[in-house]
């Protein structure tokens, strides 16, 4: 199996005034194509920081991060935006949909920034929304949907550009048990189709769905590579 994520000696520090707060203290791991990895840890452990760096929303203070064999840890911000657009699909706990756009437009958003024509965008977005079972809600605003439906829109938006990895941050955190289970099933299906999924969670039940769990405590990995 080829490694899709290769992180070595990654450190991240935040400066808060005169104090430097360490968030990651030297993290190394590899994620292979097709894996479903859960990143677990208590709050303040650094798992969100790690996810932001994996998602190219933030850059590490030290260390190297290869995504698909590209050294993204040293890329400029403009290039990172392109990586986010093409290679990463985000799913958040709070859905993060744009409230004034209908769900079709929300799903089209990454395609717009990718520079696709209007026609192509609509076509692709409709197809993906169909896959998550929302083809009858295209013109609805997010506020007109249930939590589970909103998260499905978010998943559609995450996969619409056919990304290298799907990053999910507590995707079931705001959902009731049955909607949460639905969402996890969608992730499992996506994984079965060959998608690489990285999910941040603190819920062991959720982590059970993953093929591997990385535990992070105080900015360090504990028993990281045990499946």
């Amino acid at each position, binding site marked *: 199996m080829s490694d899709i994520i290769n992180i070595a000696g990654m450190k991240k520090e935040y400066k808060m005034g005169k104090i430097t707060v360490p968030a990651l203290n030297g993290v190394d791991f590899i994620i292979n194509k097709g894996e479903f990895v859960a990143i677990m840890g208590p709050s303040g452990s650094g798992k969100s920081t790690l996810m932001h760096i994996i998602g190219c929303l933030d850059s590490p203070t030290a260390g190297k991060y290869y995504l698909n064999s590209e050294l993204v840890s040293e890329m400029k911000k403009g290039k990172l935006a392109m990586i*986010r*657009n093409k290679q990463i699909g985000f799913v958040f706990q709070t859905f*993060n949909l*744009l409230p004034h*756009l209908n769900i079709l437009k929300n799903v089209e*958003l990454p395609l*717009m920034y990718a520079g696709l024509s209007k026609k192509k965008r609509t076509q692709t977005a409709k197809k993906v929304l169909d896959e998550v079972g929302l083809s009858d809600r295209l013109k609805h605003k997010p506020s007109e949907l249930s939590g589970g439906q909103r998260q499905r829109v978010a998943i559609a938006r995450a996969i619409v550009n056919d990304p290298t990895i799907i990053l999910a941050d507590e995707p079931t955190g705001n959902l009731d048990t049955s909607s949460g289970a639905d969402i996890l099933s969608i992730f499992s299906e996506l994984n079965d189709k060959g998608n690489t999924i990285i999910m941040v969670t603190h819920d062991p039940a959720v982590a059970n769905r993953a093929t591997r769990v990385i535990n992070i405590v105080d900015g360090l990995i504990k028993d990281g590579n045990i499946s």
Partner: protein
Amino acid sequence: MAISLKENLIIGFSDFWSRKIRSLITIIGIVLGTMSIIVVLALVKGINQQTMKWMLERGGLSKITVSRNWQYQNPENVKTYFTWKELQLIRSLIPEAKYFNPQQRHWVRQSYADKEYRTAIYGVLPDFSKIEEWDVEDGRFISDFDVEQSNDVIVIGTTVKEELFGNKNAIGEVITVEGRRLNVIGIMAFRYMKNSGAIGNENAFSYLNRQTFVPLSTMIHKGTGEDEISRFTLKAQDVKSAPALREKINNIVLNLRRGLPVFEVESAKEEAEKMAENQKMFSTIFYIISVISLLVGAIVIANIMLATIQERTREIGIRLTVGARRRDIFFQFLVQTILVTTIGGIIGVILGLSILDIVSNFLGIDLIASINMIFLALLVSSGIGFVSGIVPAIIASKLDPVEALRYE
């Protein structure tokens, strides 16, 4: 691979539409500003044209006038008028002048049958008609022969004709002026110009229609007997040579009065330039006021945009997350601001043009709109959008995606 302008415009329109009240308030500010620009520009242009028209109607820009300088108190007690001999000398010294007309004016009672009318009578030469570019509509004007012979003839304005003769024919009739009987040989053409200023829409030239004219020699020899002429006008070959001629006459006139500034020599061209200069100051003040009001508008819009960006921090975070680049965010907000101000500008131009008539009637001044003004107003309103949008757009584009996503 930035998103296109068209895309940005679509986003801009939908943002604009989803925040109707805020957009509306912003637009109203710009509409008022643009309207005032249009009105001010049209006003300034109207006033300038009015002045120029006045100048042209009163004999054009090559006209030169010599008259008593009322600011000079005459402590040396020199003659404050020219004699006929002096005028002949002056004329001989300026052969380059195209036309030359000394004149005398008196207020007299003129009567015909049982009708009487008090008005101004001028003693003039035939050149008067040429200098003023004003001819008779009926009969003929005073000729060289009339002047040589001091003929008892008179040319009257249309108002005088109506007052004394009504609808009857006046040519060939005899008017009595201060006991002397004068033959009516001509009726001057009716003069009209729309008034400017607060007086309303009366004819600014109505005083011309009340004038009457006799040969200067007739006035001197048979009328007053006074060989005292305090005013003469002349015309240069063309507008270009007018200032030089004015200078020459000024020297002649000064020499005749031992260098004392008894007389004032004015050229219409220089007058017009002086007036234009005065009006420039006037219009500059107008412009400054408009610019200040638009700057206030720009600050308000910048403020609104900053508030909007704060509200939309999370949206910016989401857009960054799905692949928007900093310049996409920058253009999204800049285009949106420019869009709002340009829409405001277009409405402002339309409303401004449509209220010109109302303002024109209110002020009694013709307001003149032109294509340039419309472009200028639109340029200014989109410029305001640019100026007020650029700082908020930079701030939006500099947001950190992680921070922006966390924003509640």
